[in-house]
């Protein structure tokens, strides 16, 4: 269970099909040992979310995911009271009260704020289930206020519910935050976290990733696809260079068409899996011919 070293981490993640380089393995190891949240930034499609999933799988822990969006607030992240059920409970008390003696007001009130009426949202759920992996996805989409709130939870790993008391994680959950850098996160939040910038993988590693994630794709095709994608990433005129997720999509798409050797016609036909802008598609189509011949 306990991970001893950086290499251990890489090996465990590798078993689940997530191949990480030395630096990412080191940061993950540090995050686990120092019990600090890990903030991952990088281009879309470089495997930020996948790391949390792989980590949960390899450590055999439940994964609790909190997807951030504009306007998310504490009741959606932390907990909420199940109001309809509370009302129902009150009505039931009333009905029962008519038959026998009335329960005291305080008792009735107290019974309303019972743990069974509590709706645990992701953060509270992670604290209750801990050890667990808590993935706070795309934290840059949430508002500043929400960040401040996260800060509070991440520094103490406890949540205070006024009516019930404090919920504290027995073991702090493993927290992974991901950000696409659509806005700069607050310094205070960053300071709590270990930081890692995920780069696009190199040629060999990406070939390995394709092999492990899409084993049905033939090796020659996989290598061809990755070589092409790497060349595309090296160009700087694409609006959205393809990520690893796109590489995998494309390789799978080609495989489904029964391709074993990449040629111009099938490549052009399946470009939609790789680039998602019309302008990009045109540029890639123009470049494909020379790239395939090389």
């Amino acid at each position, binding site marked *: 269970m306990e991970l001893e070293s950086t290499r251990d981490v890489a090996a465990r993640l590798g078993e689940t099909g997530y191949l990480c380089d030395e630096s990412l393995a080191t940061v993950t190891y540090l995050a686990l040992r120092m019990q600090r949240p890990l903030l991952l930034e990088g281009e879309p499609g470089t495997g930020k979310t996948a790391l949390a999933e792989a980590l949960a799988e390899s450590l055999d822990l439940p994964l609790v995911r909190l997807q951030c969006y504009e306007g998310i607030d504490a009741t959606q992240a932390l907990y909420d009271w199940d109001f309809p059920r509370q009302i129902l409970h009150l009505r039931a008390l009333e009905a029962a009260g008519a038959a026998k003696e009335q329960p005291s007001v305080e008792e009735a009130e107290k019974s309303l704020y019972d743990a069974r009426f509590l709706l645990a949202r992701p953060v509270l759920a992670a604290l209750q289930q801990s050890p667990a992996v808590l993935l706070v996805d795309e934290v840059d989409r949430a508002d500043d206020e929400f960040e401040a709130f996260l800060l509070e939870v991440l520094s103490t790993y406890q949540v205070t519910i006024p009516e019930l008391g404090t919920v504290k994680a027995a073991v702090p959950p493993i927290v992974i935050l991901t950000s696409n850098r659509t806005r700069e996160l607050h310094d205070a939040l960053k*300071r709590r976290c270990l930081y890692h910038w995920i780069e696009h993988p190199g040629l060999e590693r990406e070939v390995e990733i394709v092999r492990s994630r899409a084993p049905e794709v033939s090796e020659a095709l996989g290598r061809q696809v990755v070589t092409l994608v790497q060349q595309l990433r090296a160009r700087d005129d694409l609006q959205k260079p393809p990520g690893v997720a796109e590489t995998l999509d494309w390789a799978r798409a080609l495989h489904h068409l029964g391709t074993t050797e990449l040629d111009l016609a099938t490549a052009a036909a399946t470009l939609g899996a790789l680039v998602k802008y019309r302008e990009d598609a045109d540029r890639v189509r123009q470049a494909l011919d020379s790239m395939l011949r090389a």
Partner: protein
Amino acid sequence: MVHDGDEPTRHGADEVCLAFTRALRAAGVAVTQDRTHGFLAAVALLGLDDQRATYLAGRATLCAGPDDLERYDQVFDAWFNARDGLPRTRPAQPATPGFSDLPATDADGTGESDDEVVRAMASDTEVLRHRDVAAMTPAERARLAGMFATLRCRPPMRRTARHQAWHRGDVDASRTLRASLRRLGEPAEIAWRRRGVRPRRVVLLVDVSGSMSGYADPLLRLAHRFTQSARERGGVVETFTVGTRLTHLTRALRLRDPERALVAAGETVPDWSGGTRLGETLRFFLDRWGRRGMARGAVVVVFSDGWERGDPSLLAEQMARLHRIAHRVIWVNPHRGKAGYEPVQQGVLAALPHCDDFIAGHSLATYAELAEVVSRA
């Protein structure tokens, strides 16, 4: 080699690491006390004997963003890889080319080298910002084209009839009631609402007649920039060219890539560098588009030097019509910013009483000013 007198002083590992964080801070990375603490803890975990591990530990604990990473690499290299044990001198900075090193005009312009030039010469770009765009060489124009991306073109906002949920403002009766129904009729929290805001429509009328030919390219780039930045915020910018006839350009300028958009625009417009019949085309615009809603409540910007071949009274009449429909009418004249300019052209004289703003439009700096005026309209 080592004399007794100046034996190198030995430092503890923690001291070396601490000093490293100080050096990093001096290099401009915002290293705080708790980050330093985290770094030492991480190094202790990974073991000091492994330099690569120390490097990665620092990257994870001391850096806060991609900008920091490069600085970190440099400082780390200088601090831990100083082979002779002494702090190394800073590597010689590549000499930055000054003013005199302007590259020979490469009209066949390879984009790459031009980019580098722009980055190397910030002061030069500042000059370029204020230069008259019509008097530029092709190479300067190419460089200026890239600078259009820096313009901030926020669309003007207007209030909407619809309300939106807000945490204060007026009571939102229906939402309050619905929330309470959801809770079996128990009174629930009161919902509030306020009037929403939406981007106001912007209409750009660009004169592409002969007297304005030097400005056509930058003005269309500006229009493209307006279109794209409004799109990001859900607003609409409509662009027309006026000359001897009216051409709707919005569709061409919606292409994201500026070069392709300009090519598409060039193919759409039939009357480049023709004459000007401003009054007539304006009437056509108002009859065909403006009155039906496009100019209603919109911010209308007219780019023209006011050389009118037709009847100035017609232009005055049409400008008055436009002014009645539009929220704000802005006239941009490329000659306005030049020394000794007087609004004496008949067209300008006829139009001026019906304009809310009359501003210059011959350089990038004036376009930035225009963007500011439009966004505040």
